[in-house]
């Protein structure tokens, strides 16, 4: 089962409106640098519910989804 985890995100906002997340701070305070954004599309999270703009990000060589839901960010946390 996956669970919806809202996280703190540092992002860059560009003049043309583009938003690029840079760092995710996990609930335990650990910071994960986003090395690359591989894809950015509107999508629903089939695993944890809700929807928004889905970033496929690469962190330490691993891929995962980061969702921007209105003004909040969440990830599909594993339990």
């Amino acid at each position, binding site marked *: 089962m996956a669970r919806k985890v809202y996280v703190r995100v540092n992002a860059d906002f560009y003049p043309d409106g583009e938003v690029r997340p840079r760092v995710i701070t996990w609930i335990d305070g650990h910071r994960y640098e986003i090395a690359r954004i591989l894809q950015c599309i509107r999508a629903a999270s*089939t695993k944890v519910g*809700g929807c928004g703009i889905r970033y496929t990000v690469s962190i330490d060589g691993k891929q995962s989804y980061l969702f921007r839901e209105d003004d909040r960010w969440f990830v599909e946390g594993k339990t």
Partner: protein
Amino acid sequence: METRTILHSDLNNFYASVECMLEPALRDKAVAVCGKAEERHGIVLAKNDAAKRCGVTTGETIWEAKQKCPGLVIVEPHYREYIKYSQYVRRIYNDYSDQIEAYGMDENWIDVTASKRLFGDGSKIANEIRERVKFELGLTVSIGVSYNKIFAKLGSDMKKPDAVTCITQENYREKVWGLPVCDMLGVGRAASLELNRYGIRTIGELAHCNDALLACKFGVNGARMKRFANGEDNSKVMPRDYHVPIKSIGNGITFLSDLHSNDEVWAMILALSDKVTSRLREAHKKARGVSLTVKCCDLAYKEWQGTLEYPTQSMGDVAHRCFALFMQNYPWVKPVRALTVRAIRLVDDTIGEQLSIFRDIEYIERNEKIDQTVDEIRRRFGWNALQSAATLKLDKLPQNEDEIDLTMPTGMLLFA
């Protein structure tokens, strides 16, 4: 005139689907969205397919539904989510046309006649929309594609969920004419019963019905129903910036224990007016009237309406008018169990107001500034960041906050 291509897109089990989309744990269960059990709204508002298969129907009580389906999961409605997702879906339609006409919260007509060169034919556009709604929002739609609004709507009912049905000038006789007349928009319940009495049961029979009989029984409406049955419906799909007006915005509370004094009632009316007027401002509406519903402890209830001196979206105006209604009308024979404040006869807040020499413009503007500041503070720090002093000592409020009762449009503009 060029043959039009019109889609009618219907979100499947809308309320229940939004709940299941937001909470994946619900997905493999039978789910019903119900009004609060302890109030008179303790009825099924919507259900998912699993609940439907158990025979759960809209409008029955939670108790009845649970008898049929013991495992039924009851969830409360979250209207703000529904409004939000209904807007998200319309945003997808927006990519294909600027003629998008809402019919309730979960249905829309989309005229894609002009977009076909860009996006392909009606069925291709419909399938693309269907896929996008599923992928981007986690919801499903069924879409009817046809050359008029009536048949497009019929098409969206034929195959669900997550499906597209095309009704063309070539196939409508096979696809539509076998359906019962009551399935067709424009044939109300009474008309359908009356038609049945004359042996007209299907849309095909209506399409061939004797003109004189229809004229005699239904007047002009008879001829119109027959035209619809033959696919002769030229009504336009309204442009997307046309909004069916919200009729009223209300907020009600059933108290944990009865109210016994004017002071308590005043505090409650303030709290309710606060919610209602903040929704008014969100919706860019002003009210020209209010209504107050009071339920006593024996569950009998009464409603009074009053006119406001000028269109307003200010908490004080609505609260004072409601309290005045209460003081004029409530005999205080019995304690009060529940109150509902409604803003009615709404107008756009952008419409210029008539000036009146009796009106203290400065006073009104000062109130508006206060309201805007309150909205801003709450937007940043949450609803509870600011409360009226009178409501602070309230201990009879139920915990639940989300009791918004938006009266959604259900009117059909087809015949306007």
